[in-house]
């Protein structure tokens, strides 16, 4: 495609939780961009595929002291000791040194799901069914992204197809570097509140690097040392505390239902009633 070597970057995101309205536009734009099919009726929050999923979290207090926030969870693009890559027997997970993007290659995946067990963020999804669209709707699929078949794992890849398109355009113009904003994932483009900022974390002049250094930024489960490249920002201390902790297994079922989260393994709790 091009003989020009792109300039290395380390792509990441800063998500402002105080701006996120929980509308779900990011989830929908992601699914459209990446050809995620509508689910079978029997799909549950555990078996459905949502590369990006917005959860509602709460401070746990009762009315009128209750407070809520929305937190979009996607692949955190771990930068160090990437858990999913370390356990994959098929080399189906690779970190691109030129971009820092953790790529999933469904063509190599054997469906063992070790990566799903290893991912501390539950950001990976398994194709339990063959992809199917209502009659005629398959003609609206994105031509830049292949559909995945039953039996493989998939996850967010920062809309890798868009990166290829942007690189091709830059190469055609003889450029080695991408202009800021020339490559943005679909969720970033779709967010009506401009809550998601994307860019090169290694570029000190970039907005995302500035926000990542900001005192209000934090990363999920930082204590694991996996160096995620998704930064979250909030001025609300309880949101920060809630996001920093593992979700306790003793959490009341009504809170889990509100968050749309599955019950903990072995707890005997049921899936959300409306799933």
């Amino acid at each position, binding site marked *: 495609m091009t003989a020009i070597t792109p300039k290395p970057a380390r792509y990441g995101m800063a998500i402002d939780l105080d701006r996120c309205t929980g509308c779900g536009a990011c989830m*929908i734009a992601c699914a459209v961009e990446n050809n995620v099919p509508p*689910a079978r009726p029997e799909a549950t929050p555990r078996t459905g595929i949502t590369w990006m999923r917005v959860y509602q979290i709460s401070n746990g207090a009762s009315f009128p002291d209750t407070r809520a926030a929305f937190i979009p969870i996607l692949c955190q693009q771990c930068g160090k000791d990437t858990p999913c890559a370390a356990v994959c027997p098929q080399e189906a997970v690779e970190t691109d040194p030129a971009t820092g993007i953790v790529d999933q290659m469904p063509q190599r995946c054997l469906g063992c799901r070790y990566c799903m067990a290893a991912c501390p963020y539950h950001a990976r999804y398994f194709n339990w069914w063959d992809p199917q669209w209502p009659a005629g709707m398959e003609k609206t699929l*994105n031509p830049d992204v292949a559909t995945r078949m039953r039996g493989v794992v998939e996850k967010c890849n920062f809309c890798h197809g868009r990166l290829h398109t942007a690189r091709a355009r830059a190469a055609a113009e003889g450029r080695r570097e991408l202009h800021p904003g020339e490559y943005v994932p679909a969720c970033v483009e779709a967010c009506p509140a401009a809550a998601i900022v994307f860019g090169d974390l290694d570029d000190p002049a970039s907005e995302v690097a500035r926000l990542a250094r900001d005192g209000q930024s934090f990363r999920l489960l930082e204590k694991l040392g996996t160096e995620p490249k998704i930064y979250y920002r909030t001025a609300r201390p309880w949101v920060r505390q809630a996001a920093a902790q593992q979700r306790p297994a003793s959490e009341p079922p009504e809170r889990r*239902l509100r968050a749309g989260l599955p019950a903990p393994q072995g707890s005997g709790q049921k899936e959300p009633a409306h799933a």
Partner: protein
Amino acid sequence: MGFTRRDLLTFTGGSAAGLMFTPVPWSLLRDTAVLSENWPGVPQPLHGEIRTRYSTCTLCPAGCGVRARCVGDRPVSLAGVSGHPASRGVLCPAGLVGHHLAFCRDRAAEPLANGRPVAIERALAGVSAAIAACGARESVAILDPRPGRAASLVYRRFLAGLPSGVHCAPPNAEPYGAFGIDLENTRAILSFGAPVLDGWLSPGRVLANRSHFQLIQVEPAYSRTASLADLWVPVLPGSEDGFAAAVARALEGETSDTHATEVARILLRNKPAIAVGGGAAVATLNAKLGSVGRPGGFLPRRDFTPVTGIASVPDRSIGVLLIEETAGGEPLPWDLLRRKLIPQDSVVVALTPWLDGCARHADYVIPAPMYLESLDEAPTPAGSTVAGFSLSPALLTAPPKLTPPAEFVLRLAHDSATYPDILKQRVAAIKKDGRGTVFTYPDAKSARVRDIPDLWKAMLGGAVWLDEPLHSGTVRGADLQVCAGPPGPALPPTPEYPLLLIAADNPPPHGSPLMSKLYRESGLRRPANAATVHPKTGRDQGLEDGARAIVTSPSGKFPVQVIFDAAVMPGAIEVVGQAISPASIRRA
């Protein structure tokens, strides 16, 4: 020593076993797995020339600009138009998947008469005969979901030729009447239940200005807007007007209500401020805030034509009711419409792309094109301070047997004009007036109307016309209609109905199967059949989390699934899209 058959078998077996310890078979497995992508049955995307086409969203009154990425002529993704005056470059979740609506299963595909397929000519003859049979006391009404369009003019002209024609609109179709909201200069919004951060007016415009205004949400439910407001004031359901009156008094230092005093202090510190939602007391509050007719408040615009609200139409007076439903609209409240019909002697005609909603109650169903399937129009964007107009060119090929609602009414009126002819006349009138500017989507530039030689062509390519601001004239506070809020005070709970039913959220719009899936799996939007109650309230009523139950109110009963949530007001039942009412809940 010769090479025996046993040696051959040993060598072969050993080689096969040894090979398993080399990368060769695994690499082969890995690299041939790529072929599985093309197995039969795995859907393949279309390939072809990538093009960009433009349209305007008509799913709601926001009037957002749409940029469609197409393979050939077929859209594969939709996005906002950068710099668009209403949408500011974004689309809502429903707008992002608007091109999927055409593939929904519950769409109307052919004309129906009493549930049976008929030819459009026969349906037309049946409706004409019903209209001709209406006596002087029986009115013919058209329920217009978006008054102010060129289609609305067609409806008015047709009805004017009948002895008793009524052009009416659903509740809240024109929440701010002849006024727009100058959001760009507002510094505080006091909202009485309006979903300010959840699809209100043009969401892109509201969110683009969010950092410029303080938001105070007065609402019994802890909604999305409440969760992101600078201040949430939880009030008892039905007491919003009382609180508005208390704030009005507090503005003049005449109340001891601490919440109202705090709210008044914020409003006075952040002027200009406006109050939205609510009833008459909120209009009075706006008059006291001085927010009517001033920058940062409610500003009048030119294009408003008053329409009768359906609630004002006398009960049992309509002989023939034509109901237009839009592709993205919420189902209209059938109980309200039913009261207006002459019992057992009325004819209902649904002009709709859907088989659910009003089509379930209609004698005739005239299938309308789905969003993006035919040339349509978007009138003034919701909340705009200037009049506006844009075309919504078709991006999809419509199946046969569909009739745009305005076209059906033109045929009823024996008018030879077509709907595109009417739209052309509207654009020609804009060009003739020569007022205002046109923002064109492909280049994101504005130009004066008189500088655009072929306005129709420009509009078809993606553009929005915006009138000049109208800041002259006398404006009084009493002119402001603010009816987009919670209904009046609820009846107090009784032994029969010990709880209060309140709206949890807006009903989910018709959406693509993909949107339904994502909301269902993430639990981000509550389903229509969920009743959320405080755990204590639920247990007091003998319910468990997840139980199936029946909610009963004076207007009827319906089945629900109970969800316990400590964020809900004790003593209340939150159900999607319900009006405030006393109610009871018991296990099914």
